[in-house]
């Protein structure tokens, strides 16, 4: 039996739902009826054997639909439900008088309440539970005003001669309208970019507009007018309240300007508006106490009039302090994002973008959307660099300094038989294929942190395929460019495979990111930590080997160039500079990966000891359904499909993860050595600085973001120190245990006198999200050795 159309729903359904046929019913009921029907005798043809009351399910009825279905006449699900004794008018209308006189303190209170709702909306709550609970806004926005003059609080009132008080009409109205217009700019920016509906933001406007039809000039005029009015009516307002209202109007004007600037910031390079906003925030916070709340001017009843199938939901309340904190971060991020706008090569761009967007708390969805738009629009990076150039800059920096592959242009060489023509054609294929995925490695920083990890898990597979395609291109290009082979120590010859090498380099970076975000998002159980840090070091050493390979070819090219340099050949100097720059970048990346690798090795060893001596907390019980092997498979899920690097078979992983065959002393030494190497490497990383500099460049052009970057490295170094201390503590405890045995050989692995806690992300003891350094302390003697 198929779907029961709405029209034949039997009239006598009373058990589970009641059809509200009256006009007071505002909830679309169709959804609920589409899928199930309550069979009654008169509806079912006699040849179908169904009992009265038997349920029939449409085979296409999904969980998704079940969850979305509403139950009519349940006050928790049905936004149109009228309670006993409630009539239509009471249910829909609030008896709040929008024309009433408001004390200046009340205007102030409403302004601040609106700001809270505005920020709650920025944080991802729907308008229906935030701004659209305001009766003032509702009157302005519904019905959709044809002109801006039409958007006033007196609309729809029968007594048109009733005069709205100036305080309300001039001041509050201007503030409300400008606030809505601010939201319009935010809404427009977010919806043009890649975001996740309901996770990051709710775009639903419920058939209203955010006044996008009106030019922002009008809103500035209204605000100016309101500011003038406040200045002229000091007699009506106490000085303090006047100042507070004025500050809010000024703030709103600057905020509106700042949001209006949006991507134009590429041209204007102006931070003035958001800096000005920031300058008002302290005073806004201090003067909030002067306001008087008008809770009756906000109502959830408006939800019943909004075109939507969602059940009634409570108003979202955030504190004014939280709203200001969110706003402050938004403005500061908006100021600092100017530092990403000067293009100084893909490497530096990646550092500024990832550093800015890794701020905690993460920049708001508006900022993240704006950054996405700035990174690329109309196939141009930062409004300045064509995507192809951007990709070529990256290739030149990493794998192809001074290569003919990047110089060949089909526009200049028109003879199809010329190898350069064919090289250009191949490179065009490459560019078409790789531009988007490459640019996405920048844009993915703009997603929320959970989505970054999930997205990278997916793009990893794409990069695996891209690497294979690039390898084909490499082979063809090698012939065309007459690449000289390189002789290896064992006598074999090999070629550089630049494009696929580059793809592999990116893929390995993504492997690392997935693991590190796993630590950040608290994905791994404590008992997995030894294995996950081993795996991180495994990926790092694979990556280091790969960079070595790339470097070998770059150095060989540089050597060949030396002869040209000596012969003072044309372009030799320029080539030399480019090659040296590339070698420096490879060095810099090596230092950083060595730092990660060494730290991971050390933590791996430390966790092995904790696990061996049974002081590492575990989450799974001996009666668990799963096995280590199956859990390893879950953990490797993102990597199962990847051809390179090859998946480590479980048995090998297990041997490595537990450091099978290594004594405690060896493992301890490994931990201690690695952590001291890590500390040195992180210091070197810090000394190298955040950015690649041109030789003549001294000052950092991205000071604020560089500070964030430094802080991050310093936090990592603190984590290293924490790990050193933990290793020392373990060492002492193991020694004490050995001494107490008095030279007797150890029996089975014994529990050691230590207490271990794993600091959670966000706690003080967790120095860095990516580095889970256990807190290890001697257990108190009382029953401590029992675990």
């Amino acid at each position, binding site marked *: 039996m198929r779907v029961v159309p709405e029209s034949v729903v039997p009239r006598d359904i009373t058990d*589970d*739902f009641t059809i509200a046929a009256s006009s007071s019913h505002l909830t679309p009921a169709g959804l*609920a009826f589409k899928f*199930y029907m309550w069979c009654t005798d008169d509806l079912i043809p006699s040849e179908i054997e169904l009992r009265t009351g038997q*349920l029939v*399910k449409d085979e296409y*009825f999904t*969980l*998704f*639909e*079940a*969850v*979305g*279905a*509403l*139950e009519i006449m*349940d006050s*928790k*699900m049905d936004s149109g439900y009228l309670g006993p004794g409630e009539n239509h008018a009471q249910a829909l209308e609030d008896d709040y008088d929008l024309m009433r006189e408001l004390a200046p303190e009340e205007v102030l209170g409403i302004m601040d309440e609106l700001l809270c709702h505005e920020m709650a909306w920025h944080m*991802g709550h729907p308008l229906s539970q935030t701004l659209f609970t305001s009766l003032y806004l509702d009157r302005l926005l519904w019905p959709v005003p044809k002109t801006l003059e039409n958007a006033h609080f007196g609309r729809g009132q029968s007594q048109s001669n009733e005069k709205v008080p100036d305080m309300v009409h001039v001041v509050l109205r201007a503030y409300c309208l400008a606030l809505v217009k601010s939201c319009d700019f935010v809404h427009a920016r977010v919806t043009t970019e*890649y975001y*996740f*509906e*309901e*996770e*990051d933001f709710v775009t639903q406007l419920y058939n209203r507009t955010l006044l996008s039809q009106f030019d922002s000039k009008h809103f500035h005029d209204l605000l100016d007018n309101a500011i003038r009015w406040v200045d002229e009516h000091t007699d009506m307002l106490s000085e303090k309240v006047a100042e507070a209202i004025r500050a809010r109007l000024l703030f709103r004007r600057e905020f509106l300007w700042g949001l209006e600037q949006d991507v134009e910031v590429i041209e204007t390079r102006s931070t003035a508006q958001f800096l000005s906003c920031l300058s008002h925030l302290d005073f806004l916070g201090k003067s909030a106490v002067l306001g008087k709340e008008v809770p009756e001017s906000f109502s959830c009843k408006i939800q019943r009039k909004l075109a939507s*199938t*969602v059940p009634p*939901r*409570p108003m979202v309340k955030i504190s004014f302090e939280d709203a200001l904190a969110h706003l402050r971060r938004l403005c500061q991020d908006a100021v600092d994002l100017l530092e990403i706008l000067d293009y100084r090569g893909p490497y530096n761009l990646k550092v500024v973008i990832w550093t800015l967007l890794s701020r905690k708390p993460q920049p708001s969805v508006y900022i993240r959307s704006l950054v996405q738009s700035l990174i690329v629009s109309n196939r141009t990076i930062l409004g300045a660099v064509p995507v192809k150039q951007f990709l070529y800059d990256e290739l030149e920096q990493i794998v192809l300094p001074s290569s003919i592959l990047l110089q060949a242009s089909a526009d200049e060489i028109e003879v199809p038989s010329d190898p350069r023509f064919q090289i250009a054609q191949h490179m065009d294929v490459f560019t078409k294929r790789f531009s988007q995925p490459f640019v*996405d490695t920048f*844009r*993915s920083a703009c997603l*929320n942190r*959970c*989505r970054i*990890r999930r*997205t990278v*898990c*997916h793009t990893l597979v*794409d990069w695996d395929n891209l690497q294979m395609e690039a390898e084909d291109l490499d082979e063809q290009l090698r012939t065309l460019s007459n690449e000289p082979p390189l002789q290896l120590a064992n006598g074999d010859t090999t070629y550089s495979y630049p494009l696929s090498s580059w793809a592999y380099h990116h893929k390995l970076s993504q492997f690392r990111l997935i693991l590190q975000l796993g630590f950040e*998002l*608290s*994905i791994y*159980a404590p008992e997995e930590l030894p294995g996950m840090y081993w795996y991180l070091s495994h990926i790092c050493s694979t990556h280091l080997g790969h960079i070595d390979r790339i470097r070998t070819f770059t150095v060989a090219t540089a050597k060949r160039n030396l002869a040209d340099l000596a012969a003072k050949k044309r372009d030799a100097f320029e080539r030399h500079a480019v090659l040296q720059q590339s070698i420096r970048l490879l060095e810099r990346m090596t230092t950083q990966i060595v730092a990660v690798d060494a730290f991971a090795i050390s933590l791996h060893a430390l966790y092995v000891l904790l696990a061996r001596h049974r002081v590492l907390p575990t*989450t*799974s*019980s001996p*009666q*668990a*359904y*799963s*096995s280590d092997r*199956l*859990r390893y*498979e*879950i953990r*490797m*899920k993102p990597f199962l*499909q990847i051809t390179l690097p090859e998946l480590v078979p479980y048995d090998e992983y297990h041997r490595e993860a537990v450091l099978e065959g290594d004594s405690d002393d060896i493992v301890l030494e490994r931990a201690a050595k690695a952590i001291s190497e890590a500390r040195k490497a992180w210091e070197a990383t810090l000394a190298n600085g955040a950015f690649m500099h041109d030789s003549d460049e001294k000052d950092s052009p991205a000071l604020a973001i560089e500070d964030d970057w430094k802080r991050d490295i310093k936090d990592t170094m603190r984590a290293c120190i924490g790990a050193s201390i933990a290793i020392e503590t373990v060492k002492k405890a193991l020694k004490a245990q050995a001494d107490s045995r008095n030279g007797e050989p150890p029996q089975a692995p014994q529990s050691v006198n230590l207490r271990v806690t794993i600091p959670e992300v966000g706690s003080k003891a967790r120095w860095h999200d990516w580095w889970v350094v256990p807190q290890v302390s001697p257990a108190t003697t009382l029953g401590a050795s029992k675990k």
Partner: protein
Amino acid sequence: MNPNPTPALSSTATTTAAAAAAAAPAPAPPPPTTTTTTTTTTTNTHPPLRYVRYDGAREDEYVPAMRQLISKDLSEPYSIYVYRYFLYQWGDLCFMAMDDSQQQRMVGVVVSKLEPHRGGPLRGYIAMLAVKEEYRGRGIATKLARMAIDAMIERDADEIVLETEITNTAAIKLYERLGFLRSKRLHRYYLNGNSAYRLVLYLKEGVGSMRTTLDPYGAAEMTGALAAPEPALLHENGSGGGW
């Protein structure tokens, strides 16, 4: 239609005590559920509970009690259609804990489903698990979860998944004790803005490599302006929670 509309894994009010109690060691694994009714005594001080499998013929008796148990502290309850969706198709994966000494006998319930995931692995999904507040800390939730998992294993399930709110430490601990791992974190998954963990249990080797017809990785990333959210299944409204 709102894709994230209603609550999922229901857990009624949280108290630290309840959470801590729930984190206590789980009882020994029960024998495989070959019969639909088993009786166990969890402690000496409590009357024995009866564990029963859902029976569609007794819908009128069971479903209202179940709804009451699960919806207790949810501001936005599941519609009847959600219950019917599960019970109509997978009633045999639903188990209830009954205290016959009480007027309202049902004190715990687990609701699940089992079907091929995108044409690939046979995936079990634990949709709801709830235990009445005063009965928490007695291993009832663990017992119910085990019964559901055992029933899925009998039906040759390849894997079992579920979501829990990241603040619901009691629930997370319960499932992790059973061998589940967190596979990913879902940002602002619930209506109240809280995030979730996806928890996964593989029951066989090779599940991770099973091909699915609709390749979730195939979708071009970040190319469209608007990203459709993953079809979120069920959502807890999250009064926080523990058993």
